[in-house]
């Protein structure tokens, strides 16, 4: 299929909104929201990220986008618990802009490295 995406945010709304937005330009890409704590508050949920990683994986790897440093740390921890950690990488990219660029790149059939590079080249709005 294509590279999948997990959108890790401290806010469930942000994660869901980013998925809506990115999906508009990437109908065939698995993009999974992992936002907020387990009880819906502001924060990150290891379980949501873990589920996101497995839902987004369709055999071509997963790129993880994060909003704050603690989201990155949660995501890194979750990636270490995955069966094949090399199949999931965390982008050093801004959340919304990186997710859109990555989604469009994945939609075009790019591999994980290329999708990651697309996210990491995104900076301010294009």
């Amino acid at each position, binding site marked *: 299929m294509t590279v999948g995406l997990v959108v890790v945010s401290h806010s469930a709304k942000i994660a869901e909104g980013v998925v809506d937005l990115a999906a*508009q*330009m990437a109908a065939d890409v698995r993009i999974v929201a992992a936002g907020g704590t387990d009880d819906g508050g502001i924060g990150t949920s290891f379980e949501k990220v873990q589920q996101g990683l497995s839902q987004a994986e369709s055999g071509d790897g997963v790129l993880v986008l994060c909003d704050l440093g603690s989201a990155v740390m949660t995501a890194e921890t979750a990636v270490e618990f995955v069966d094949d950690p090399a199949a999931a990488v965390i982008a050093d990219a801004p959340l919304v802009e990186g997710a*859109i660029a990555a989604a*469009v*790149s994945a939609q*075009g059939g790019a591999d994980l490295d290329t999708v990651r590079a697309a996210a990491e080249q995104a900076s301010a709005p*294009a």
Partner: protein
Amino acid sequence: MALNSQWVREWVARSAQYIADNRTELIRLDREIGDGDHGENMDRGFKAVSAKVTELPADASPSDILKTVATTLISTVGGASGPLYGTAFLKASQAVKDEDELDGAGIVALLQAARDGIVARGKAEVGDKTMVDAWTPAVRAAEDALAEGATEQQILSAAADAAKVGSEKTDPLIARKGRASYLGERAIGHRDPGSVSSALLLKAAAEVSP
């Protein structure tokens, strides 16, 4: 024959009709290299514009009408084309301020102002695969026609034809502005939707010109 506010009203009505007729096609084009809403955005905008222009007093000037078009598009389109066309019609409105009748020079000034508004707002150049690729050749063709002593109708027809050719020439381009710029080489082979809607608006302007 110089063009008055009646021409502007008919331009608006015909534009709304062409946009409605081409709604599905504009959606299809935007789905290829964008988010698929250009037809919806433009149709919502021009339906609102039609309603608003009908409500204007009978003695509204061309500038007044163009200003209503501008603010309505800005408020209702909801995509990049909203501020772009909105700014275009706003600048056009300012360019023909205090004129009840537009001669050839007035028409060219209107088109130049519209194009300059789009460029000021979106910072795209010719070749960036945007609506500028329709507007800039249209303005050039209108300027040339004016210099050759053409009628208002001929000026607008030259602009419309050039816009259509300019739009077709976006097919092989890579986009450097707007959403399509995310696609890189994958945009090649697809026509820019905004250039197509621009060509429709200019076609409408020419057709309703007496």
